[in-house]
């Protein structure tokens, strides 16, 4: 599905790259200990081959084995911070390629995306959109800032599934799911970002949750009908390879309350 995002801050590339599996490669930005345990719960995993994977969205391509990892959501919230895209359940899960799991100083660690999960497979900046407007009714596509952004107009016009602040996502709505009270929750999540410095850049972004061939129905009535191909998948789509991440979370093993299991 073709979706849109509004990204606040001067590093939209780094933030979006951490939310997207470019070329089917899952970002490996942050290390999370695989064995944690306290009185509130414990983590677990199961090594699986490609045939036994359970989480397919967005698809990550790879060969050989995967590790289906499960952590108590409370632990991940402490370890990854408030921007992590975690489950509402007590356990949050992620399947990572086996080569993203390493033993370091006697402890197994899994490398996961900076915000725990990814939401799509491609993204690109929208330039010179006539529908991306600021308060002065000028085209804000090239150089919108917090001070020039007409927030309510742009939320209503672009209906973004994703709002990203300078340090990470503040709102995400799964394109395949019916959200509850989406417009109100999105507005409330975005409003604090309008308190950022007036010259903070704001970028409109296109993103896709699946590669185009995965929209094709398998002949089942349960699958959504295949939409028209989107121009975002044209050959001039920008930057096919993900930049290396500049984030270093390796030195943060998480709160001491969570001991090795």
């Amino acid at each position, binding site marked *: 599905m073709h979706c849109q995002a509004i990204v606040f801050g001067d590093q939209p590339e780094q933030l979006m790259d951490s939310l997207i599996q470019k070329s089917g490669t899952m970002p490996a930005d942050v290390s999370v200990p695989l064995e944690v345990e306290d009185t509130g719960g414990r983590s*677990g995993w199961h090594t699986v081959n490609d045939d036994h994977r359970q989480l397919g969205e967005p698809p990550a391509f790879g060969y050989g084995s995967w590790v289906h990892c499960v952590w108590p959501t409370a632990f991940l919230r402490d370890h990854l911070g408030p921007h992590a895209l975690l489950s509402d359940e007590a356990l949050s899960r992620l399947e990572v390629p086996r080569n993203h799991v390493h033993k370091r100083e006697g402890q197994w660690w899994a490398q996961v995306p900076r915000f725990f999960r990814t939401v799509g497979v491609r993204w690109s900046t929208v330039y010179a959109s006539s529908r991306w407007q600021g308060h002065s009714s000028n085209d804000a596509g090239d150089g919108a800032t917090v001070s020039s952004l007409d927030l309510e107009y742009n939320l209503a016009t672009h209906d973004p599934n994703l709002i990203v602040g300078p340090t990470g996502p503040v709102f995400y709505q799964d394109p395949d799911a019916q959200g509850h009270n989406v417009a109100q929750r999105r507005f409330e999540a975005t409003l604090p970002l309008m308190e950022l410095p007036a010259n903070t850049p704001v970028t409109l972004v296109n993103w896709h949750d699946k590669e185009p061939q995965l929209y094709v129905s398998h002949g089942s009535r349960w699958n959504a009908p295949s939409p028209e191909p989107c121009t975002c998948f044209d050959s001039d789509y920008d930057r096919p390879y993900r930049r290396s991440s500049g984030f270093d979370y390796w030195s943060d093993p998480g709160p001491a309350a969570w001991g090795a299991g």
Partner: protein
Amino acid sequence: MSLTAWLIGDDTESILDDLTASGGHPRAQIWIPLESTTHTSSPQLRRYRSAWAHRTIDGEQWVDFALPADTILETIGAQALAHPKALTYGKALSSDVQTRDGALMAKVPRYFSTLATQWTLEQVGQDPLITRSGRETTCTTVGELDLKSSFRKGRGEPDLVIDHRGPRLLRRDKGRYYNVSGWKEPSRVMTEIRQLPPATPIRCAWCAD
């Protein structure tokens, strides 16, 4: 979510009952260990380790868990409705989680998973059975069933097929049925139905959350 289930043979309603969590509360029927892992002296990553965590919803205290297929297979048996060679998720009220003989255990439904909160034999969904005479029905026999038309292979197969061996659930993204012991192709499921005695009753049920 709505599921279409086929009940094949006599006394299969009780199986559907055990797959139903009335009021959202799974039945507490069988004790299963919550803390299992593969033991190895190898420096390699162990194949699995179970996970669990507490949570509170609407004033009720629950334990959510993820258990490996080996543990479910050993405790419940091959008829358990769980992912083969992977983790399967479940939940139990905290009152159904106890330390027994030094091991943390949870009391789970007879087939480990539940799929719905209610079910009915009245046609409330689509894709009923079709007889050899072309009539739509919710109840017939294997001998009278137009299996190919009823199964709607690739278009609307039954989500759940229940016979005396227990339930198998269709995973639509893989196009195959499964229980904890493994995967089964729809064509194999159809062949097994075709080989049953003609007088075997077959009914269609609809399950809902």
